[in-house]
């Protein structure tokens, strides 16, 4: 079943709000905790993209179906942002061995 435009719009708006909140939280953790600093650049990119998706979904609500490409742009921004979140997790996994090694003797600086 192909979802209707209004349903996609709803998914886009709710998705962008949730994604923006989530990425802002992760960004905050990345900036305050050394352990999560490894993936700060991809998280920052994801936050920017999610923020744009939030703006585009707002624009879509205001302008309506006449500019449906904005809705598609919202979904693309959400998708690319999600790829960046995955990338940040990957960067963390790359460094996990070194972080654990350091943690064993020097917990105070983490």
């Amino acid at each position: 079943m192909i979802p209707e435009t209004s349903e996609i719009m709803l998914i886009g708006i709710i998705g962008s709000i949730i994604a923006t909140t989530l990425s802002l939280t992760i960004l905050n953790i990345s900036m305050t905790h050394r352990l999560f600093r490894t993936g700060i650049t991809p998280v920052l990119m994801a936050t920017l993209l999610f923020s744009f998706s939030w703006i585009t979904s707002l624009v879509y609500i205001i302008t309506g179906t006449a500019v449906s490409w904005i809705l598609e742009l919202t979904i693309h921004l959400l998708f690319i942002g999600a790829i960046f979140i995955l990338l940040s997790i990957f960067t963390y996994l790359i460094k996990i061995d070194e972080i654990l090694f350091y943690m064993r003797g020097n917990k105070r600086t983490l």
Partner: protein
Amino acid sequence: MVFSTSGIGSLVIDVGIVIVILVVLKMLKIPIVVDPFGEKSVHLRNVQSKDKDLFNKFWLKTGREWKKEIIDKEVKKGLQEIKIVAGEIYEGTRETIRYCLEEKRMKVFIVAEQGLKCPTEDLKEFIANSNFKLRISDKRPEHHKTIIGQNILLEEYHTRHDPYKKALGIENAYADVLEYHNDIFNSIFRDAQEIKSDLDLDEKTVCIYKPGK
């Protein structure tokens, strides 16, 4: 329609955009993987453990190689001292000390545990050099490290009879990380007993420091 929201084409476009963004970040010299401790941190191996850890042998540098590289780099920038917290003065540490004293004319500050596991001749030779400052701690330092300017080599925890197998080399450590390790070095060095001449040492192949002298 500007985009297509369904199908493989859409996925390819999105992944392509991600790759383009990553290339742009790389060109702008913005690091994609940020190191949590400094500019770059790498795992290192001990030269003595190469036979046991065949896997590590092929892709990890030895602590000695890393230290030499960093010393060369830092001396060019004007660094004149190296700080070492050690348990024993094993062959690798001796090699580094000799390299610093003889080839680079650097000051070497070292604090170690009683019973250095260092041949007397070598130790006498080091002590004769005015740039070598040795102090002996009553308590074994738990975490051994070498501080070369802003770079730190952290050894894996090991006992007196078993040299470390793995270490972590941090290049250009962040200020707080460097401050933490410098503070530890300074406190151990301050509390330790200074060795001013070879008269403070036993005449044995493995030097044993005589407390109270």
